[in-house]
């Protein structure tokens, strides 16, 4: 023990001496720059957008950082998540192609791999630091391509290390994000195009991935903490995705409500809402229960900032296994088990029914809950192209197609099959049966109509 303490003391002195005798702030910045800037990647994905009723391709700009010698680059999901092809420019201005490996909209992270077959130089790999040991006020550098200006470095401090945003925040690509992570807030300038770039400490380690900034504000940027990045990228490299358990609960901070729920400070997590059709709904759990323990480990969320860690605790449970829960309800405590399900995809697959003038989406369970649908049958209309036969037939976004002519559409593949069968036939009229806000509607696609209109023009 004494030996350990002495060792610690020696280490402490060494570290201090090194900082005292070592570099000035300027030198430290230059040193940190040299460690990470060579690993910075300017990313130009071409992303697929289905929201206008047709497949539209869009060139976007983002940033990323090489974190693995095999050419793996971490960036934001909202940069590369919907990419069809990706062109990357490395810090030595060499261009290479990259392929999409996997992503996680819930933490807004994605991994792409550089195609290095024609690249001769040695790849520089940035090192991940520890986002749990960062401090408010600590100097940081943000690197990336603000407004497409590649290889840009900006400097600032950590403004807050545990910024919470509720999970109603949506990515530019439409998915909700932020349920499972907090954000590091920094005043290092972050602009559109910085997305996916590294936030770096003065020892040259990546402590976060810059993800969002507040428009019209001065220097309010937010980065995903690197400890989350490490977990997510590891999962993507191992399994291609992040697998999470889901029981379907929403919780809120207990602060101000402790007296009402008869609990003490830092004891318990308040369940505020339960998703319909979720494992929690079919279990004993009710909104208003205070969860005291999960798998015999005490849990608490007095403040909002503690919620992501609690959700992560559930998410990390093996899907399909039993979660032991102890709750406080009134004056009584109850212990019971909830069998979790896999969270699954947030958004379903997209498909363009090009000849019909609209796009559809597979309905995942999470979409069913979010759109308040009774079941996940059918396909969801994502967009309707203006002026198309679908638009003329009054098809609308958010309609759920349950039948095409006489064929029931159970799921995504049914629709794709029916579409491919019908698209080249001489059918003049196709009847879609759709669900629209609880009622059934009929949408008739009339083909010669469009041809006639085109003639008119």
């Amino acid at each position, binding site marked *: 023990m004494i030996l350990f303490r002495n060792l610690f003391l020696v280490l402490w002195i060494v570290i201090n001496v090194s900082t005292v005798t070592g570099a000035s702030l300027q030198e430290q910045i230059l040193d940190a720059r040299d460690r990470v800037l060579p690993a910075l990647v300017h990313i130009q994905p071409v992303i697929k957008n289905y929201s206008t009723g047709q497949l539209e391709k869009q060139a976007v700009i983002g940033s990323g950082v090489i974190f693995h010698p095999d050419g793996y680059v971490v960036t934001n999901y909202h940069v590369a998540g919907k990419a069809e092809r990706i062109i990357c420019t490395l810090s030595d201005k060499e261009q290479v192609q990259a392929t999409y490996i996997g992503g996680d909209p819930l933490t807004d992270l994605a991994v792409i791999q550089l195609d290095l077959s024609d690249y001769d130089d040695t790849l520089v790999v940035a090192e991940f630091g520890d986002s749990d040991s960062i401090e408010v006020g600590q100097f940081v550098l943000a690197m990336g391509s603000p407004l497409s200006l590649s290889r840009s470095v900006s400097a600032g401090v950590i403004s807050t290390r545990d910024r919470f945003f509720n999970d109603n925040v949506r990515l530019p690509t439409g998915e909700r994000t932020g349920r499972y992570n907090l954000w590091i807030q920094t005043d290092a300038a972050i602009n559109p195009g910085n997305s996916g770039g590294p936030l770096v400490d003065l020892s040259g380690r990546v402590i976060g991935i810059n993800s969002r900034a507040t428009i019209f504000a001065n220097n309010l940027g937010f980065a995903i903490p690197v400890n989350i990045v490490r977990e997510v990228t590891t999962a993507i490299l191992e399994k291609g995705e992040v697998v999470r358990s889901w029981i379907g609960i*929403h919780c809120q901070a207990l602060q101000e409500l402790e007296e*009402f729920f008869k609990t003490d400070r830092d004891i318990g997590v308040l369940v505020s809402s339960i998703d319909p059709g979720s494992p929690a709904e079919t279990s004993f759990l009710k909104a208003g229960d205070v969860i005291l323990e999960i798998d015999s480990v005490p849990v608490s969320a007095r403040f909002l900032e503690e919620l992501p860690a609690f959700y992560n605790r559930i998410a990390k449970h093996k899907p399909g296994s039993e979660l032991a829960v102890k709750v406080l309800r009134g004056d009584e405590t109850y212990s019971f088990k909830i069998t979790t399900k896999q969270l699954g995809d947030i958004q379903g697959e997209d498909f363009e029914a090009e000849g019909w003038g609209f796009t559809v989406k597979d309905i995942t369970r999470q979409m069913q809950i979010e759109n308040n649908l009774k079941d996940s049958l059918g396909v969801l209309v994502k967009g309707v192209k203006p002026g198309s036969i679908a638009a003329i037939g009054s098809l609308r976004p958010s309609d759920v197609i349950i039948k095409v002519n006489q064929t029931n559409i159970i799921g995504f593949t049914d629709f794709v099959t029916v579409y491919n069968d019908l698209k080249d036939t001489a059918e003049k009229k196709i009847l879609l049966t759709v669900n629209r806000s609880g*009622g059934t509607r009929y949408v*008739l696609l009339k083909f010669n109509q469009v041809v006639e209109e085109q003639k008119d023009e």
Partner: protein
Amino acid sequence: MNKPLISVVTVWLTITIILFSMPVVQSQEFDFELLEQKVQSFAVIINMKLEVSFGIHTAEQSERYLGTIVNRDGMVIFNGTSLTSNAGLPAFSGFTVKTNPTYIEVSTLDGKTYEAEYIGVERFTGIGFIQIKGGSDQFTPVEFKGDQEFRTGDWLSLFMLLPEFINPPLAADVGMISTLIESPEHFPLTVGFNSLQTTAVLFNGDLQPVGVLGALMDPSMANTDPSGLLESFGQFGIPLLGVITAERLQRMIADPPRQGVVDRGWLGISLQALTRDMVEYWGLDLSGGIIVNEIMSESPAEKAGLAVGDIISQINGQQIEVDKEEKLPVFQRLMAELGPGAAVELTVIRRSETRIDTLSLLATLEAAPMAAADADEYECKSLEFNVRNMVFADYMANNLEAETFNGVVVSKLKMGGPANVGGLRIGDIIQRIGDSEISSVEEAELIMTEIETAQPAEVIFFIWRQNQTLFVNVKTNW
């Protein structure tokens, strides 16, 4: 002044004078002097103070209208479009615009002034009704002439109200029947009048009052109502003006629409027009009809045995010629005007994969569900918020089950008040206060009264907001 400018001005003035004088020159000879004398007895000027609440904001405003006395007891009609509950706004997320007249004063043209009270607004025409207080058998009302046969080219005249600083207050205008619209409704269309003159009495060439100026039903808002009820017929775009006929007016005057009282018949379906393309696709022999898209639980439609996908082709033996979505309000208004309790015979086409059946179903219409703005309300003065009872549209818009889901909707919040600061929002559905379940404003009032006696430091609300439930802590300030 240089010469070219003068000549330009002269030309411009000449053109303007010609343009402005043209209708008068061209129109039939109206004896406006005589007409003005006629109008003296029933034309009134209404000064109204209104309280308009829009979510968290409440504003007071003053309005001035031209009114017309329509019975001997002093009932007055005016353009009440701005007073329609939820004017143009559907009941999405409990958001309501509520317009309450707080003070009404009626002045006759001979200078007598009376206080009046609000009766209601007819939703299809926007005609407002007020009643002069204490008025009984003392007024000379307008006597609308029925059976007027309108022909294209007939001239009509009316009086309009001039701004307050101008004397005399009334000015005459003329217009012409431009066509007789047959579909979606019978409507003599006029040209020459403007929408500011709506609800003014129209006189024919013999100086007889034959109706009031109104707009053709505008179905442009028909599809945006989440309840599928087509509760509102917003007047968006440029209204097509014409004659609201004496017959229709007399029915309204005999039984004016009263605020908070629902007297519209309701079948309880959401619906779609049977277009010609669909007729062809399904191989039917119809020129139009109503496709039943959804049947409300416990509604007259459900009791009558209607099924989703049925096509209503006739009502009481009368063909329904709805072949475009824009014509849906015809059916809607027919149901509304038949009224609650009306027995209707529906001829229904029921399709299956193998056959097409024609059924005759009997339905007894019920009163249409209440609009959010008409629902009972409770004002909690201590925590500075209002709640109202849930209405049908709340359940429809939010996909909630009426049988199992209870609550009251936050309808008003005073900015900076305890409820607002504590985090309640307009449209939140309060399900519990403290430990007490709340399903009506009476229950909310009871619990809040108890709380006001006990004066706790905080009140915990359990609310429903955007498909999720949530606890809200409102700190009190006794």
